[in-house]
């Protein structure tokens, strides 16, 4: 930015910045409204929805943070996200390894089958899935959410990992085989460690997908003690529909983990999304 800029360039840049700030405000203002609104009481929200709280009312946040319900939902979301991610990444890595490095009859057919799976939205399968899970006794059981989530996450995970596995040179594998590695040894001791960046990417995608899933936990868990954050937020809104400030505080607190993950793993998330589209 130190190079001399003529006035035309400078005013152009100013316009670009103004556009960015305006768009940024559209994103930030609703979130900020939530954060500050959580520190107000409802009277303040009516008379002063935009300004700073006066006085600051921390009770909305502290009540939620000390109640236990929020922490339980956070824990449920976390457990389900971690378990779904481990299963989908594990199963997809094994399949992607075979799809990337073995030739066999029917390979392309299988790959196409998984690729078409990208087009099966949860909404299409949710009803028969519910009937089947009920038949298997998996309602009000975290596995009833974890396993379908893992299954629906397979296509994107396989596509990204397969691409990555193909870039690992054949010499690495030949060297491993000479050293006495079987396919399992090569996969476990060499391929997976080399694929760490790709595994991080697909894990972040899987965690975000699980964390934000609403429809499946909504129908699988009638027992409140298994509710995840999205289900909990929606129920909280229904329960306290007159207490806007309290609902705002709950919404804001439920955003914190997602935004924290985003701050840490933005690169993996963006890289994964951009990479999956290239495939």
């Amino acid at each position, binding site marked *: 930015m130190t190079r001399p800029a003529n006035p035309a360039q400078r005013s152009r840049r100013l316009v670009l910045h103004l556009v960015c700030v305006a768009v940024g405000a559209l994103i930030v203002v609703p979130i900020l409204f939530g954060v500050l609104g959580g520190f107000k009481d409802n009277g303040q929200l009516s008379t002063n929805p935009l300004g700073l709280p006066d006085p600051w009312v921390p009770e909305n946040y502290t009540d939620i943070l000390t109640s236990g319900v929020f922490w339980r939902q956070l824990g449920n979301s976390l457990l389900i996200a971690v378990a779904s991610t481990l299963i989908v990444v594990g199963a997809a890595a094994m399949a992607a390894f075979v799809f990337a490095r073995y030739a066999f009859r029917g390979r392309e057919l299988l790959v196409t089958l998984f690729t078409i799976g990208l087009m099966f939205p949860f909404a299409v399968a949710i009803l028969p899935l519910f009937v089947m899970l009920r038949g298997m006794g998996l309602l009000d059981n975290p596995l009833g959410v974890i396993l379908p989530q893992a299954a629906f996450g397979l296509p994107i995970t396989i596509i990204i990992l397969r691409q990555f596995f193909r870039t690992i040179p054949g010499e690495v594998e030949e060297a491993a085989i000479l050293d006495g590695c079987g396919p399992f040894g090569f996969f476990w001791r060499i391929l997976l460690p080399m694929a760490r960046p790709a595994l991080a990417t697909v894990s972040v995608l899987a965690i975000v997908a699980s964390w934000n899933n609403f429809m499946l936990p909504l129908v699988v868990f009638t027992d409140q003690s298994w509710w995840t954050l999205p289900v909990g937020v929606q129920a909280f809104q229904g329960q306290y529909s007159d207490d806007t400030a309290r609902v705002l505080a709950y919404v804001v607190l439920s955003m914190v983990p997602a935004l924290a993950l*985003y701050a840490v793993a933005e690169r993996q998330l963006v890289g994964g999304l951009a990479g999956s589209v290239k495939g």
Partner: protein
Amino acid sequence: MSSPSTMSGPRRGHPGAAAVPGPRGVRRVARPRPGRRVALAVFLAPALTLFLLLVIAPIVVASYASLFKWNGFNLPENFVGLDNYLRAFADPVFRGDLWRALLLIVGSLTIQLPVALGLAMLLNQRLAGRSFYRLVFFAPYVLSEVTTAVLFTLVFSPNRGLGDTISRWLGAEAGAIFADPDTVLIGVFLVVSWKYFGLYMILLLAARQGIPKELNEAALTDGATTWQAFRHVTLPLLGPTIRIAVFLSVIGTIQLFDMVWVLTGGGPIHSSETMAVTMYQYGFRRFEVGYASAISIVMFLLSLVFALFYQRVVLRRDTAGALTVQGGQR
């Protein structure tokens, strides 16, 4: 394919392999055929089992159930043929769902995508703080649809909301955007766009940064204006990504549920209802599982037909290009 027992993959027959003495012979000893088959089966089993049982089977179950009048309990017995489908297409609510899906798709293609494209081009410029802007613009994508929807319900809530105050400033009465059948779909569209424009922006930005600078510079040197360079060099090269973005947008709209369910529940008087919401109402509230399954299958067929058509007609060139590039790398 001359020796099927050897390891395959894009690097098969790599010239560098010649440096290793007798790799073929070693391979045959290390990996006899039956072992290879077992290994393939073991590696594929978990993914295939999960996928067939929990993704494919539900589709099969739904297509079967859609032929019955069934409350979801016991086994379906009351076979009604295609009646559930005829009923859906005669139902004004479901026809409305299709119409609203079309409106939302047109809205995304004519407003959301061009805005995302514009912002991607903007963030591709040399601009102080552009990575910060990118971070902010993309942030809503990580928030769940439910959180976003609850937040915006409150932002637009009458009396206590932000929307009320701002519209009072502007002299309008937009505070009740979700309560008015005429405006509710616009409200849903705005919130959906708020959450998802960053995704399309990020995809287009990544694609834009993959285009070599020289191409644009050459066009400019040859006397093209900035607009001409964008229109005839950048835009065609962004084609594949734009087509994928269109695809994601259409498929996403067909299955839209969370956002609508939390924002409006499909109301008032069905004016923001989507296919998925109608399906949920019948399947999980009224226990008309046969009818709801028919709606699921229509959603599925719409996605599938669109995807196949799109793959054939629109994405074909892109795939062909991708394959030649890969072949070249081999």
